[in-house]
């Protein structure tokens, strides 16, 4: 039964996407465009060292990430690896505990030979290890991070950690630009953003004085008092009402999985669907959010998160006209990955492996052998790289000026209609797939609203 649903969902997505995904100008002649190998590395092994919160609160993201890494490595190894060298992973679980992060890092950094690169996951980990990776000369990749993790407390000291998504603060900045331009005509004359999020490094990463000031310049007010809730909260109507009473017309959340879902559900419960718009960080537009929302329907009969706007700095599952996306979809289907696994993190896993491959090819080409590759050499490559892994996003850190890829775009989460040719307008015409747990699955689609463009640089201390 589950497989049948999976096939149906994938079919539905495939058929539907051709219609309303706009062709993008970043088209690639071929989606995997690695540099040519000048050195044969057959017999060597390149290990991707990764440590993240596999068993803790962020497992909804980390487990698909591991799945993506595993599937991608299997595929690349079966197709020649990195100029003949085989890829491998070494995953360690931090459980969300900084002490564990530190311990695992110590272990990795003392291996012989010392790893040249590690793959980080949590913004808190990046903040903790920032000075240490620099000291040890280990270059690090992370999907998205906070200002402090990537640039230090003064916001102007680029470190050794490179993020493949825009800074959380910059994401909120580019959302404000979007609100000011208001192409959909929904945000009104005086838009007011209320920030509602989790406590901690990740949840509070976008709420910076620079972002608030920048949004103000755009004519978008950000309320000075953010609201904070916990992943365990049963009811956050108090927090939402506080923001609405203070005049918020938009709720922006820097959370993932149950976070955006809870905000959307509360808005529906309070009958505020007409009065406030929902928005969030790139993680808010994720399959996990849409799936959770299937049991909380809005007054239009669609899941409560229908219409949430957020950053989508990379290609999404629905953009099948991209050969890279089509390729990852095929891989996910071939490995029988479930719908919850087909999320942001699985894409990230695949593109990370592709980026690693290119990174090593370029570096080895420059140095002539794998043994000569160290963290500093990889960092030099990263500084100069301009490469699009599988066409999913463009890894370009502006000649080493930046530590987070600045390209961003806005998208809206909607749900597929019954004829599979566009977003549903109400629950009646939505595609409903019965699930074997008795619930109904609505198929999420992400509709890009803007083209890829650089997000504003909202680090402290600039200009």
């Amino acid at each position: 039964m589950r497989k049948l649903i999976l096939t149906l969902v994938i079919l539905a997505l495939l058929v539907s996407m051709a219609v309303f995904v706009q062709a993008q100008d970043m088209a690639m002649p071929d989606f995997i465009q690695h540099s040519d190998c000048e050195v044969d590395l057959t017999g060597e092994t390149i290990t991707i060292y990764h440590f993240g919160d596999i068993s803790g609160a962020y497992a909804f993201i980390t487990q698909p990430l591991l799945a993506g890494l595993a599937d991608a490595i299997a595929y690349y190894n079966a197709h020649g690896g990195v100029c003949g060298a085989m890829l491998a992973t070494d995953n360690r679980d931090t459980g969300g505990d900084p002490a564990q992060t530190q311990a695992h890092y110590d272990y990795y950094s003392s291996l012989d030979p010392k790893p040249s690169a590690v793959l980080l996951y949590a913004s808190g980990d990046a903040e903790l290890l920032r000075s240490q990776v620099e000291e040890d000369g280990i270059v690090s990749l992370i999907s998205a991070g906070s200002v402090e993790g990537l640039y230090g407390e003064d916001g102007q000291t680029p470190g050794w950690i490179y993020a493949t998504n825009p800074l959380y603060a910059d994401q909120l900045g580019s959302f404000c630009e979007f609100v000011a331009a208001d192409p959909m005509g929904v945000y009104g004359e005086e838009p007011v953003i209320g920030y509602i999020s989790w406590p901690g490094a990740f949840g509070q990463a976008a709420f910076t004085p620079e972002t608030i000031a920048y949004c103000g310049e755009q004519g978008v007010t950000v309320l000075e008092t953010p609201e904070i809730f916990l992943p365990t909260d049963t009811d956050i109507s108090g927090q939402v009402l506080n923001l609405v009473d203070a005049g918020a017309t938009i709720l922006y959340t820097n959370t993932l999985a149950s976070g955006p879902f809870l905000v959307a559900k509360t808005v529906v419960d309070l009958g505020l669907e007409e009065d406030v718009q929902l928005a969030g960080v790139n993680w808010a537009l994720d399959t996990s959010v849409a799936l959770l929302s299937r049991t909380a329907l809005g007054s239009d009969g669609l899941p409560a998160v229908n219409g949430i706007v957020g950053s989508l700095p990379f290609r999404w599952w629905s953009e099948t006209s991209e050969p890279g996306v089509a390729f990852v979809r095929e891989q996910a289907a071939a490995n029988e990955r479930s719908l919850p696994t087909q999320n942001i993190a699985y894409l990230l896993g695949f593109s990370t492996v592709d980026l690693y491959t290119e990174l090593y090819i370029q570096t080895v080409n420059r140095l002539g052998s794998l043994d000569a590759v160290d963290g500093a050499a990889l960092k030099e490559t990263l500084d100069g790289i301009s490469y699009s892994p599988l066409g999913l996003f463009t890894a370009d850190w502006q000649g080493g000026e930046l530590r987070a890829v600045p390209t961003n775009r806005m998208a809206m989460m909607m749900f597929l209609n019954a004829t599979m040719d566009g977003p549903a307008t109400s629950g009646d015409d939505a595609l409903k797939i019965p699930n074997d747990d008795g619930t109904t699955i609505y198929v999420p689609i992400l509709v890009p609203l803007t083209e890829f463009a650089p997000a504003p640089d909202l680090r402290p201390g600039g200009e």
Partner: protein
Amino acid sequence: MAANIRPAGVFDTQYEQDISLNRTRSDKWWTYGVFAALLLIPLLTVDGPLGLSIIPSFWIGLIVRIAIYAIAVQGLNILMGYTGQISLGHAAFMGVGAYSAALIARNFDLPFWIVVPLAAMFTGLVGLLFGLPSLRVKGFYLAMATLAAQFIIPWVLRYPLEPLTNGSRPLEVPDPTFFGISFAPQAAMYYIIIPLAVLLFLAARNIIRTRIGRAFISVRDNDLAAELLGINVFSYKLQAFFLSSLYAGIAGALWAFDTQSLSIDKFQLNLSIEFLAMLVIGGAGFPLGAIFGVTFVNLLSQYIIPSLSTTLKVILPVLLPFIGIANIEAALSPILFGLAIAIFLVIEPRGIAYRWEILKIAWKIRPYSY
């Protein structure tokens, strides 16, 4: 949970013997020997002056972390093991130490050796404040009062003090300086932290022999009887809270200078519970218990579980084909950790230090059984 377990027939014949820190000469040599061996370790790593790679260099980081935690757990031991007052807020006190050290160092440009004692004293005073409920409550209720500290202190650090502490954002800590020399490299920190940890361990061991320590123990064993003997129970409880927080404060300050990046998320309830676990595993009431417990838990989570996981990751999918591989990957470390602690508790509920004492006795009186 007697701290001194002796085989039958071993008596102190002189007062000096009874109150000595190291009862026998071999005790003394053991202590100094281990200390000397610890000091040698950095010389035997790749980064050492001799360039020998006898010992992997991550041992340095591991030992430093064990030492810092051991100081914190030793503090908990004074409160819980000696005085019998449960604390669920020890991590928060460590946080107070870390943040006060960071803030003093950032704002007043004082050298390291002044900052640490200042931070520790301040933490001790905060601990005294949260020890006040012990005036009226004890046992389970007191555990709850310390739990309140565990939530209130991080809250104060995060919100009202945000302009100072950066709130949810990380706080950078300046390099530790010692007479103008920076001690930022880990090997240098090692030579500050290890002697300090040994010193604090000896101090904790020494406390038992003093008037205060004996009063602590009598409060633990029977507070009513202690009161009748003329011991001011409340005053001693407060002293225990102060000392315990002092240790936590030192540990926190050292942690701050060692990692140089602080986040409030570090000092949450799970760390307090972890301290509790380390102490009980090591043996509450034994000075050595803190060191044993911290070492055991660190080795468990750093070596034993990862290496077991690697094997089980291969075996389990074959044995249990109906469970997804991703699920197994996530589930292994909590299952193994839970099992290890459970099995350990069933085998030795009084802690490693207790077993150690038994072993020592068995060695002393061999070949007889008692």
